[in-house]
Structures are given as C-alpha cells and as structure tokens.
C-alpha cells in the first residue's frame, strides 16, 4: 500500500534516520486520553512545512458560547479549539478517551526503549523450564496419575452399573487412565533489574516526592509491559539508606539530612549480593532534589565512578526542583562527567508536566 511507504518515510524522518535538517520542525501534537481522573496525552509527532503564517497576535478568532469579556478560554500555548481558523478548520474535536494502563504503556512503548539491553544470564540455565501442572489422557506409565485414574474408573463403573458396593473392585481400562503433564515456561533471555533510588530527606517536599513517584510509577508500568522478567528494587535514603519494598517506596514519609553516597553504597551492596553484572542488565534510576551535604559529593562521585557506572547498563539521575536546596548535585555530576559518559543521563524535572520529557530523555528512542 502506498500510504505505508509514505508512513515509513515519515517515521524515519521523525526518528532522525534521514533528512536530519527536517527534525527541528518536529512538534509533538497530542491526543488527550484519560486514566481515572488523570488526563494523559497520547503523543503524535508532527512535522511542519514552514509557511508564511500569522504570529500569535493574529491568532484571534470567533467562538461560540457563554462567558464575559475577558473570560479566559485557554492557555497561550495553543489556540482554543482551532477556532482561529474558523473557515478552514475541519472541525476536528479533540476528545478525551479512556485508556487502560496497558494501552498507555503500549503507546509509550512506541516512543521509549530500554537502551543497551543485552542477552545475559547463566549459559547453563535452561531456556525452558518444565512444570507439572496439568493432566492428560496419554503419557508414559511412569507418569500415571493414580488418584485421577482411580476416580475416572470409579465414575465409569458407577455410571455403567458395573460397580458393586459389596465388593468394590475397580479395574481401570485404557480410557480411564490419566497422566501428569507439564507445561513449559520460558525463562527471560535477558535478565534485567531496575533499581530505584529516592531521596526522602527533609528538603524533599510532598510535591516533589509526588513527582518522583509519578516518574517511577510510569517507568515501572512501562518496563513491565515491555520486558518480561524485569526485577525491581527500591532504595530510599536520607542521611542513611535502606532497601524497601514497593509499598514503602511509594508511601513513606521521612525527614533528615541527605547523603547520596549512602544510597549508592546500598545499591553497590545489592548488586554485589543479588545481581552480578555478568548475569544481569542493571538499570539505576535516582531521584533527588540535589541538595546533598557538601562533603558527601566527593564520596558520592567516587562511588558512582568506581563502583556503579562500570557495572550498570544505564544510570539515570532525575533532579526535581527544590524550593529550599541549591540543587548543586546535578551540576557537580555534569562537571565531573560532562557529556562524555553515555551511561549516565541526567535530567531536571521542574514539575509534573516535565515527567514525560524526562522519561523520554532517559529511555527515548530519539523520537
């Protein structure tokens, strides 16, 4: 189909594979979806052909409805409903749709990918593991299911009136025999573990923790929809760090100072203990407001450089904007590593809206 050809051409341009010069025109239109009470956007990349167009001060139009003069219709980002082009707009209504979590993750899936995932795992591990979980009518005698076979024979004899309660002799015939059967479960070829680290110190307000949890939640949702067999571990820290379960990670409230190195320490131990890098793809996501204790920075960077980065596939650091702190940690990271280390990705998250761009920065396919 010809349209398929045009479509793949468009996708290649958007991904930056061809026509690099056009990429700067990529804008992200969106459809609005709804998940529970939250609105989510379904990204739709768009490429504009530049034309001579009116700018913002000419983007007025005529609308219909109630409201006083001065009533706001919508933020300045986009024209409300395209009514500015009353004459040429096809009357496309942007509507909200219910989207399930799985669908959302699928949508995200077109935009994101887990970078640098490699097939790892013990070479002697069987690819398929058998588990006896069902019963069949045929099989080797060694696997005969005695109880089921007896039941079948009994049932047959009763229903055919050959069962004598006085001398209960049950003789199974071929049709009665039941055998244990197995199903095969596939083991994931590439083992991956995702380790989340969150700063829960006093300088992190509830809003910021909310942002971090939103980001972690979406990462989690997406990862689980896309990759089977992903392990997840959670670490929280203030001045001291500990490994916690999912429930605690998403709901804990703590306060105290900040020592990022403590989290790194726990993380290094965790990797050493459970996830040897030879067998596992390791992804670390750290969130903090970057307000680390001054003398701890050096120690943190040291741990990161020597112990963490060599072992992990990817280390992402997301920094939320802090009303109190200096947020200097991101700068010391940038200063120490520059752009040279491709395993390390840093992003600043100013508010909830920035969560999605941040995810794309972490896991973007370049869309």
């Amino acid at each position, binding site marked *: *189909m*010809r*349209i398929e*050809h*045009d*479509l793949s*051409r*468009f996708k290649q*341009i958007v991904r930056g594979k*061809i*026509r690099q010069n*056009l990429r700067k025109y990529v804008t992200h*239109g969106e*459809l609005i979806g709804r998940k529970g009470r939250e609105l989510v956007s*379904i990204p*739709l990349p*768009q*490429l*504009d*052909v*530049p*034309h*001579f*167009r*009116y*700018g913002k*001060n*000419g*983007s*007025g*139009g*005529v*609308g*219909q*409805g109630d*409201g*006083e*003069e*001065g*009533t*706001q*219709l*919508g*933020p*300045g980002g986009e024209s*409300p*409903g*395209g*009514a*500015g*082009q*009353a*004459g*040429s*707009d096809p*009357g*496309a*209504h942007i509507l909200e*749709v219910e*989207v399930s979590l799985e669908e959302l993750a699928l949508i995200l899936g077109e935009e994101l990918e887990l970078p640098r995932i490699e097939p790892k795992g013990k070479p002697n591990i069987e690819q398929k593991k058998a588990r006896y979980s069902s019963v069949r009518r045929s099989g080797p005698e060694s696997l005969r299911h005695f109880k089921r076979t007896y039941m079948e024979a009994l049932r047959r004899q009763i229903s055919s009136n050959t069962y004598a309660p006085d001398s209960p002799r049950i003789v199974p015939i071929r049709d009665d025999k039941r055998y244990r059967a197995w199903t095969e479960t596939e083991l994931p070829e590439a083992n991956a573990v995702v380790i989340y680290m969150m700063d829960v110190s006093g300088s992190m307000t509830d809003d910021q923790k909310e942002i971090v949890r939103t980001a972690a939640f979406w990462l989690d949702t997406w990862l689980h929809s896309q990759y089977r067999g992903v392990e997840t571990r959670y670490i929280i820290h203030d001045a001291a760090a500990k490994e916690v379960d999912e429930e605690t990670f998403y709901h804990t409230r703590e306060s105290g100072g900040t020592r990022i190195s403590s989290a790194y320490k726990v993380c290094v131990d965790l990797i050493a203990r459970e996830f040897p890098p030879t067998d596992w793809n390791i992804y670390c996501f750290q969130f903090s407001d970057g307000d680390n204790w001054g003398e701890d920075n050096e120690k943190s960077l040291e741990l990161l450089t020597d112990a963490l980065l060599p072992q992990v596939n990817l280390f992402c650091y997301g920094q939320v904007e802090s009303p109190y702190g200096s947020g200097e940690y991101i700068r010391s990271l940038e200063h120490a590593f520059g752009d040279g280390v491709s395993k390390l990705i840093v992003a600043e998250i100013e508010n909830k809206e920035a969560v999605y761009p941040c995810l794309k920065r972490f896991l973007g396919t370049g869309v």
Partner: protein
Amino acid sequence: MSEAIFGHRSLTKADFPSQFDMATATFEPLPANLAEIQVRIEGYARDYGLDFYPTIFELVDADQLNAVAAYGGFPTRYPHWRFGMEYEQLSKGYTYGLQKIYELVINNNPCYAYLMRCNGLVDQKLVMAHVYGHCDFFKNNYWFSQTDRKMMDEMANHGNRARRYMDRFGVEEVETFIDACLSVEDLIDVHSPFVKRFENRDKYDFGKAADQEDEPPLPGRFQSKDYMEPFINPPHVLSAEVDRLRKEREQQSRFPAEPVRDVMLFLLEHAPLKPWQLDVLSIIRDEAYYFAPQAQTKIMNEGWASYWHSTIMTRQGLEPADIINYCDHHSGTLASSPNKLNPYKLGIELFRDIEDRWNRGRFGKAYEECDDWTAKRNWDTKAGLGRQKIFEVRKIHNDLTFIDEFLTLEFCREYKLFSFGYNPSTDAYEIESREFPKIKQQLLFNLTNIGRPLIAVRDANYKNRGELFLEHQFNGVELKTSYALDTLVNLHRLWTRPVHIETVLDGAATILSFDGTEHKTEKSGEIKT
C-alpha cells in the same frame, strides 16, 4: 479535497485488517441494499432541484478510508512523507476512538464518495444525502467553476511523474525539492482564475520611457499669460506631477511592474530551475489551485451539505426506527463544544436564517429602515422566496462574501458568538468582545485570503543583483518570525539567489533576508502602525 466530517463519537478499538494493497485493488461495487438506497436518495435530491455530476459511492473499511483521507480524498498522490503523517494521525485518532471520518467526497466529474463499511444503515443514508449536497455545491458554486473536473486522473498522473523523477534523480533530491515547493504552496492568487491581471504585452512596445531614460520627466502645463502663470500652473502642483511621473517611470522599469501575488507562477516563469523541478513546482501549484476553493467555501459547503442531509432525511429518508440514531449523529456533527465555532453549524444555521428571512420578506429597504421593534420582529410579507434565495447564494458566494452579506446582529446574539484574541499579559486566549461589528470583523479577517498573510513579489532584481524581494502587505498582524525565516530558506532553494521579505516586526518595518548561508534581520526604519 475531502469534505470530511469528523464525528466525535467514541468507538471501540477496531481490528484493522492486515495490509491491504490499495494500488492494485479496486473497490467493490455497492451491495444491493446500499445501491437501492442510493437510487432513492439521489431521487429525493433531484426532486429538490439539486444538480450534480454522476456520483459514485465506494465502500471502504476504516484503514482504507484513513489512507484516502490522508491523500486528500484521492486514491493516490505523489509520494511524500506528509501523507504518511496525516495517515498516522487519522489512524491513531480512529484507533483510540477520538475521531472518525464519516464521509469523504471528491470534487470531480464523476464525483467519488466513500462510505465506511462499518457504519450503520442510517449513517450511510445520512452520508449519501450529505454527499449530494456537496456534489451540487461543487458543480454549481462559481468558485469551483475553474477547477479541474478530471482531477482524479490528474492526481494519478502527478504521482507517476513524481515517482519517475524520484527513480531518475533520487528520492531524497526530489523530496527535498517538494518540501521547498510546499513551503510556498499558499503563495497563490486565489482570484487569478477569474480575472485577467496583466494585459498581453505587445513585443514591440518598449514603453514610453525607454528613450528618455536620463531626462527629467516634463509635467503637462496649461497655456497662460506670464502674470497668470503661478495661478494656472501652481509650482507645487507641477512638482507633484513630476514626482508622480518619476514614480510611474520607476514602476515601469521595475520588474515585475506590479506586485505579483501568484509567487508560484512567478517562480515557474523566472526561477532558474531544471525541467523536472519546473514540472514538480507546477504540480504543486496546480494542486494548490484545485484545493483553494474548498478552503474558501468551507462554511458554505458544509452548511449546504448539512442543510440538505437534514432536509432529505427528516422529510423522506428516515424510517421510524432510524430516528434516534439519526438525531444522535446529526447533533454530533453540528455540536458546537463550548468556545468553538463549528463550520457545519455556522453554515447550516446561516442558510436556514437566510431561507427564513427571504420566506418572510425580512430584507430590503423597508425592513432595514423599520424602527419599530415589535413590527420588525413579527415582520412577515409571505414573500416565500427562501428556497430560491439559498440556491442563488450557493451559486455566487464564498465564505468571505457569505459572512459579509448575511451575518446579522440578530444571528450573532442568538448563537452567542464572540471574538477572542491572545492576551500577552496573561498568556492566554480571552474573550475580547461581544459587539457585532467586532465579531464580524474578526471573522472576516480569519477568512480573508483563507486566513493567511498577503504576500507578493515586489522586485525580482532587488539591489540590481537579481535578488528576490517579497512584500508582506501588512494589515496589523505580524508574521510568525521563526516560520518566516525557515520559509525564506526554502524559497532560496527555488530562487537560488538571496531572498528578502519586507514585513513589520514589533511595530517597525523590517526586512528579513536569507542569502544561502545566514539570516539577516534589518529594520528599514519607518514606523508603521
């Protein structure tokens, strides 16, 4: 192009059939029950006096319809990523249940229209009735009179030519050039098919000024006695006359002599392009002219089609069992969500308003000058001219003249229209006014030149260096600078010499330039308001 109804009923995710080769497949003929409905609806339409080319309906599924819609209603176009993007948006919107195209019809002889297979029978009836409205409009509206009625074939030819060039000169090369052409596709003169802008010049006419290049122009004098000279030939009049003549002479020596609105034609005639490039440019230009009337008559066209589907369906088309479904979909099409103007709604209500006014004689001098409010409200001369009038309106008007002529104060009040604009201090769009003149002015502004800035070639030999100088005929609204600069880059690709556009930025006349390597922004001094 397509006249697409984007209904907004949500649907469940549909299972698309796997790859379907549209290039080789012919659409199947209508099944008997739909063919029978078509005959009936067509009969009703003719009885009402609608006049249309033969109309062929094709039954397609959602994926095919999205593809056709992405191609602007045609089964095939020249290869370009833009269509892929459209398709992606349409099919994503459809998959997630955000939008659905109900119908699509092409201005062609015969007219082609598409019916979506999964639509219910009521929908198919509604769409057919709607389509006959469009077909009548295409055939009879004056603004469509110069469009190519064999565009279906022409588009296929365009596709073949572009594909051939891609085979010979490379996809990248041709696609890049198409992008550049698309950047100026709206720089056409929508009125040019109807007027003769330039007299054919005699090739021996070298202009009056040719021989007297260096002499100052001589003003005409009246005979007079010496003592009357200052009165009969006042010096300031004479010097004004000299200025006028000088300007005129300048005008004639300038190329082009008059500003040319059809920038694409100008490029075709004068830009140093290779033959295949000229052909591609002319393809894009032909298509731009073909699609222009549809943008010019969106409100009327949709209004007219909606008027007829509503008339035909409610009077003849509907079975009792269809009523609920019909009402649901009809109101979905005409729904005006808060703060949005729906061209379908505006169009149909204006046509109904006109019909009502001419039925009751609410027009003309006596009615306009009547000061008595109650008399005016109950005005009814039983003129009964409504039907006749709307047929006349659909023949001669386009959206601009339609709104100018028929949008009334009463209409604005009844439909709660308002004008809105961008307020930089709050960074938001706000309702600006509910005053009738302002609303009308705003709407007319949005419709003028299809809502695009007026741009013309003023000088093709700027600074005597063969540079292209465009002027933006400033009307109070500034250009979007980032887009303008990028457009200049594409224009430079066509003209191959430096290009400039004079416009107004931040209240000052400004010349934006691109010389092939870098942009320059230069204030030309004079302050314009």
